C-alpha cells in the first residue's frame, strides 16, 4: 500500500513541481496591466490552441462527461459536436474580435461589449453575469478535486479529508496564478494541455486496443445506448438539439474562453490556434466517449459511472495507470480553475471597479490580484460548506443557461451593425433573469416545449428584445457612424511594432466606450 501511495502521490507531486518550475523559468515581470491580463498579446498558435482547450474542458470531463457516456450512451457525444462547432465560431469571429482588441486595448469579453455598444452599463452587466456564472463551476471543480484526491490516495482518506487536501493544493497553485497573471497561465496551459489531452488520447487508444478489444466491447451494449434522446425515452425531440445548441453558443460566452483570443499575437495565430485545437479536441472527445461506452461493459463502473475513469484505469493498468489517470485529471483541473480565477479577478478589476474609477495600471493589477484571492477563498469555503449539498449542480446548470445570454449582444454585436446598447442591456439582463427563473422550475428540460432546456426560451426572449428594441429605437446618426467606423477598422490589423506605418491624422470618431 505504501509503495502504491508513493507512486500515485509521487507522480502527481512531480508533475506539480514541474509546472511550478516552468512558471519560474519563464517568468517575466509584467510591463503593465495588459501584460498581466492578456500576456501582452504575444502568444503563437500552439499556445492559443492548448490554452483554449484548457479553458474549455474542465477536469470533470473525466468524471461527469465520461459518466454521461457510461450511463446514457451516444447522448454524451454532444460534447464533441458543440465543442467543434463552437470553435468554428471562434474562427469566424477571430478577425474582428482580435482587431478591436488590439486597436482599443481590450482585455476582456465585457471590454468588447462595452466598446461595441459604447456603454459602461452593458460592460458591467456582461461582466457581472460572467463572474456570477463562473462561481458555481469553480466550486464544483474544487469539489471534483476531492474525488481526484480520494483516488490519488487510494481511497485511504475520508471524503472530507480528500476534499480539504484537493482544495488546499489548488489554493496553493493559485499563488502563482495571482502572481504571474495570464503569461504564466498560458505557458503552463501548453504543458498541462499536452498531458491532459494529447498524452491522454494515446492512453485512451492503448486502453481500447489492449483491454477492450478495439471497438469490440461496445457491441455488447444494449442498442438503447445508441439512440438519441427523443427516439423513445422520457425526453422530447428537441432535448438533444437544445443541449448541443446551448453548448455551441456557450463556447465563447464563457469569459475564460473568449479572453484567449486577446492573448494571441495576431489574427492569424487565433485562426491557426483554432485549426490546431480542432483535431486535438475531436480525437480527445471521441476517444473519451469510446472509453466511456467500453467501460459501460464493466459492472464495477456501471455501479459508479462518475468514478469510471479511475476505476477503469486501475483495473487495466494497476497503480501506475491510476497514477497517470490522476495526473491527467489534475493537469486539466489546474488549467481550468487557474483560468477561471484569473479571468474573474481581471474582470472585477478591469470591467467593474475600473468602469467607475480611473485607475492606473498598477492599481488595476493590484485590484485584480486582490479580487482573485477573494474569489479563490470564497470558492474554497463554499466548496467545503456545500460538499453534500445536491442543489449545487442545479446552480451550475442554472448558471450555464444564464451565461449563454451573453451570446446575443456578443455575436450579433460582432456581426450586425444596427444592434443598440438599449437592446443589448435590456435583452441580456431580461434573458439572464428569465433563464434563472425557468431553470429553477425546469432544471433539466421544459417538457411542454419539446424538452428544450430552460435557457432556450430565455434566449428567444433576449433575441426578440435585442432586435425589437434596436429596430424600434434605432441608433443616432452619430452612433451609426461610430459603429460603421468600428466595423471597418475590425477588418484590418495594425502593423506590428517595428514595421513602419504612415500615421494619418483623423480621429473624428469617438472610439472608446463611455457611460450609457
Amino acid at each position: 500500500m505504501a509503495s502504491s501511495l508513493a507512486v500515485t502521490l509521487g507522480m502527481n507531486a512531480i508533475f506539480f513541481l514541474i509546472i511550478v518550475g516552468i512558471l519560474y523559468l519563464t517568468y517575466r515581470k509584467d510591463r503593465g496591466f495588459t501584460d498581466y491580463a492578456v500576456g501582452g498579446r504575444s502568444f503563437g498558435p500552439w499556445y492559443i490552441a492548448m490554452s483554449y482547450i484548457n479553458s474549455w474542458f474542465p477536469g470533470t470531463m473525466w468524471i461527469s462527461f465520461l459518466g454521461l457516456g457510461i450511463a446514457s450512451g451516444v447522448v454524451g457525444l454532444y460534447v464533441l459536436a458543440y465543442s467543434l462547432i463552437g470553435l468554428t465560431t471562434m474562427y469566424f469571429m477571430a478577425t474582428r474580435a482580435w482587431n478591436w482588441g488590439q486597436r482599443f486595448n481590450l482585455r476582456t469579453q465585457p471590454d468588447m461589449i462595452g466598446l461595441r455598444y459604447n456603454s459602461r452599463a452593458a460592460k458591467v452587466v456582461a461582466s457581472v453575469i460572467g463572474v456570477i456564472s463562473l462561481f458555481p463551476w469553480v466550486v464544483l471543480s474544487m469539489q471534483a478535486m476531492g474525488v481526484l484526491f480520494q483516488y490519488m490516495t487510494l481511497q485511504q482518506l475520508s471524503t472530507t479529508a480528500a476534499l480539504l487536501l484537493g482544495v488546499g493544493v489548488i489554493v496553493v497553485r493559485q499563488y502563482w496564478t495571482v502572481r504571474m497573471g495570464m503569461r504564466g497561465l498560458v505557458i503552463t496551459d501548453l504543458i498541462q494541455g499536452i498531458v491532459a489531452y494529447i498524452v491522454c488520447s494515446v492512453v485512451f487508444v492503448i486502453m481500447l486496443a489492449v483491454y477492450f478489444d478495439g471497438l469490440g466491447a461496445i457491441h455488447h451494449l444494449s442498442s438503447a445506448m445508441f439512440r438519441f434522446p427523443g427516439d423513445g425515452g422520457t425526453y422530447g425531440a428537441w432535448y438533444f438539439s437544445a443541449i448541443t445548441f446551448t453548448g455551441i453558443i456557450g463556447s465563447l460566452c464563457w469569459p475564460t474562453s473568449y479572453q484567449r483570443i486577446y492573448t494571441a499575437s495576431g489574427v492569424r495565430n487565433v485562426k491557426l490556434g483554432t485549426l490546431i485545437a480542432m483535431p486535438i479536441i475531436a480525437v480527445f472527445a471521441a476517444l473519451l466517449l469510446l472509453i466511456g461506452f467500453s467501460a459501460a461493459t464493466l459492472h464495477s463502473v456501471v455501479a459508479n459511472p462518475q468514478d469510471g475513469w479511475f476505476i477503469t484505469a486501475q483495473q487495466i493498468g494497476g497503480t501506475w495507470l491510476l497514477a497517470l489517470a490522476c495526473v491527467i485529471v489534475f493537469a486539466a483541473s489546474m488549467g481550468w480553475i487557474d483560468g477561471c480565477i484569473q479571468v474573474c479577478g481581471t474582470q472585477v478589476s478591469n470591467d467593474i471597479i475600473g468602469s467607475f474609477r480611473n485607475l492606473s495600471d498598477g492599481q488595476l493589477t493590484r485590484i485584480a490580484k486582490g479580487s482573485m484571492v477573494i474569489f479563490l477563498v470564497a470558492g474554497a469555503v463554499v466548496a467545503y460548506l456545500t460538499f453534500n449539498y445536491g442543489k449545487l449542480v442545479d446552480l451550475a446548470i442554472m448558471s450555464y443557461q444564464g451565461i449563454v445570454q451573453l451570446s446575443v449582444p456578443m455575436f450579433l454585436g460582432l456581426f450586425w451593425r444596427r444592434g443598440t446598447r438599449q437592446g443589448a442591456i435590456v435583452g441580456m439582463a431580461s434573458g439572464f433573469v428569465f433563464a434563472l427563473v425557468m431553470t429553477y422550475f425546469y432544471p433539466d428540460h421544459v417538457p411542454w416545449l419539446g424538452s428544450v432546456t430552460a435557457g432556450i426560451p430565455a434566449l428567444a426572449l433576449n433575441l426578440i428584445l435585442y432586435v425589437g428594441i434596436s429596430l424600434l429605437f434605432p441608433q443616432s446618426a452619430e452612433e451609426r457612424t461610430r459603429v460603421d467606423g468600428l466595423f471597418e477598422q475590425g477588418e484590418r490589423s495594425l502593423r506590428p511594432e517595428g514595421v513602419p506605418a504612415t500615421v494619418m491624422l483623423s480621429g473624428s470618431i469617438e472610439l472608446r466606450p463611455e457611460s450609457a
Partner: protein
Amino acid sequence: MSPRTKKQIFGIAYVLTALMVICPPVYLAASGASPQVLGLPFSVFYMFLNAVLIVLLVCALWIVESIRGEHEVFETTTTQGEEAHRG
C-alpha cells in the same frame, strides 16, 4: 471567387454541419445502433462523421484564406483617435 461568395459558401456549409446535430428530424434519422459502419454503431458513426466534416470545413477555409492572403490584413495607417485611446 468574391469575398461575398466565399462567405456564403462557407456559411452554408457551417449551417449544414450544425443542422446535422441540432435539427431533430435529421439526427433522429441516424438514431440507433444499426447498421454498423467501420465497426461503429450508426449513431456514433454519424456523430464522428459530423466532427470530421466540421474539421474539414475549417481546414478548407484556412487553405482558401491562405491562397487569397486573407488570414490577416494589415492597415497602412493609424488614426489619431486610435492612438489617443490605446492604453
